[in-house]
């Protein structure tokens, strides 16, 4: 132990024995609210290594994959044809979204895994406040990091390749749109983590959600399943993400901002379920 064998210090050094409302003037009692919870969650998310690891790997993937593609195309002197330059960032973002999903799950599930959630909820009885604060902090963080990185990658790609200049709409979709989509995907993972309460389980389910529709569609060979196959292709998460670059994998299906809207609705439903389950279940 680090404490020397000295008589125990008084627990409240500069304070008269705390009668209610008799705090030291430097410590006015006030009722905490959502803002305090957001500050707390910001402290939590910035003080663990998993945040640095997942977001760091995501940035590396976006930059690495995006730039490598651009450099490779330039070196091969290949023709981009009608492909917009910014769409080269797609593969990096698709890989990077796994990192955001992992962080989203860990943000809540690690509290259940370590038991910290009991300490947290013994300090703040409002489950919804904690979950909403987590969501806000996580969403803003992952949105900012994704959008900025996607923007940097886009700028570098257009500089390396002298294809046509992307329009403002293309820029918006490839940065803010992609940032929103990936952050929403992470938020969906967070909601799932709150329901499942198990890191590995929730991450596995989320990766399944991202990949399974596409994989299933690939193996639907019979003609009778054609319509199902088409829907799975069009609404799979990679396709929706690609639609933000104006190059949907399939030509039909939701385009651009529709994808963001669809995912917003799905995430809202999941978050509602998470809030309801948090409020009802024992910790």
């Amino acid at each position: 132990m680090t404490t020397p064998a000295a008589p125990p210090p008084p627990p409240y050094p500069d304070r008269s024995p705390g009668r209610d409302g008799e705090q030291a003037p430097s410590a006015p009692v006030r009722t905490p609210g959502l803002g305090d919870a957001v500050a707390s969650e910001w402290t939590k998310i910035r003080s663990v290594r998993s945040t640095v690891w997942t977001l760091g790997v995501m940035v590396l993937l976006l930059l690495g994959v995006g730039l490598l593609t651009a450099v490779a195309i330039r070196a091969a002197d290949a023709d981009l044809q009608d492909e917009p330059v910014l769409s080269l960032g797609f593969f990096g973002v698709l890989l990077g979204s796994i990192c955001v999903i992992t962080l989203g799950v860990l943000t809540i599930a690690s509290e259940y895994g370590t038991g910290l959630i009991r300490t947290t909820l013994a300090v703040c009885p409002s489950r919804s406040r904690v979950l909403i604060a987590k969501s806000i902090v996580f969403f803003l963080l992952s949105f900012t990091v994704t959008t900025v990185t996607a923007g940097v990658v886009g700028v570098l790609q257009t500089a390396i390749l002298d294809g046509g200049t992307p329009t403002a709409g293309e820029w918006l979709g490839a940065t803010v749109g992609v940032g929103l989509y990936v952050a929403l995907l992470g938020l969906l993972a967070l909601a799932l983590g709150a329901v499942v309460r198990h890191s590995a389980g929730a991450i596995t389910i989320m990766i399944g959600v991202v990949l399974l529709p596409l994989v299933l569609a690939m193996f639907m060979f019979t003609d009778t399943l054609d319509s199902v196959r088409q829907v799975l292709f069009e609404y799979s998460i990679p396709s929706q993400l690609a639609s933000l670059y104006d190059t949907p994998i399939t030509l039909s299906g939701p385009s651009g901002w529709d994808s963001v809207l669809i995912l917003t609705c799905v995430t809202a439903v999941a978050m509602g379920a998470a809030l309801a389950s948090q409020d009802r279940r024992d910790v």
Partner: protein
Amino acid sequence: MIEAVGLTKRYGAKTAVDNLSFQVRPGAVTGFLGPNGSGKSTTMRMIVGLDRPTAGRVTVGGHPFRSLPNAPRQVGALLDAKAVHGGRSARNHLLSLAQLAGIPTARVDEVLGVVGLQDVAKRRSSGFSLGMGQRLGIAAALLGDPRVLLFDEPVNGLDPEGIHWVRNLMKQLASEGRTVFVSSHLMSEMALTADHLIVIGRGQLLSDMSVKDFISANSADFARVRVPPEPEQREKLTAALTEAGGRVMPEPDGALRVTGLPLPRISDLAHGAGVRLWQLSPHQASLEEAYMRMTQGAVDYRSTADAKEGLVPPPPPYELPPDSGLAQPPELPQRGWYAPPPPGRSPAAPAPSPHPTERETSEESR
């Protein structure tokens, strides 16, 4: 003030807490005792609203915890020392809790100093020993300077110095008029810390009384008699006492435990038998013994068929084994209790296995 009324918690078919009603009053340390799995932690969790009671209710200061205005300023709880994210530093852990509770940051450094973790505040808590983890948990409980404090097994993993510190801390918190509710399975610890005891077994209330009442209500008082070491003296006295209706039991150090007879009567009988007494002292059973009796009763009470079968026999069946000779004391389950205390141990430091010799002295001086 904590008040539970008909508190019940079932997990499927298992009843963890069964119709528990009690009050924890301010200004005293209330010990919450029970064997492992008796429902202590479940009760604690229900007090802070982590588990919903199946039936009944528990309130803190008249409100259920989850509808308390500004709960972190009113209730501080240490439920599980390992309930921290190991990757976060001690200071950041406390900082996040303080921010969540709307408590100024300065208070974080203050409580770190109170629990003596200021030197390791920047270290990640995964490297902490269990004792350091307990201190961190206590720091978290103290953050809001609350009026009601809950500690679940706070001395687990602490060194004797740390245990001493926790004991004084709790007494001080109680003396400041706070409500202090401490669960433990360490009887010896509660004997030194608690003013009031709530004992549960199998989720049911077994006892709710002050420590002093608890001991006198549950103990078998006996007299310790010491006679000159000649065997015939002892045999003569034993025969006289047994004849008069007392029960005599030899102790390993040669003394006799006599139950069922008041002290003056023992003296008279000895006088009548012509036996000189070197010692005749009243002895009150320790809290440990009282607790063992009580929880055994709980098992009795719950058994279905033959209640006595398979049970550890109650500790003191102080009877003279026939013809066994007094030099060889019979096998006693609590034999290890008579081991001498290791040199240098302060009598206040709780021992892993309690020493009645130590406690006796303190109790006889009471």
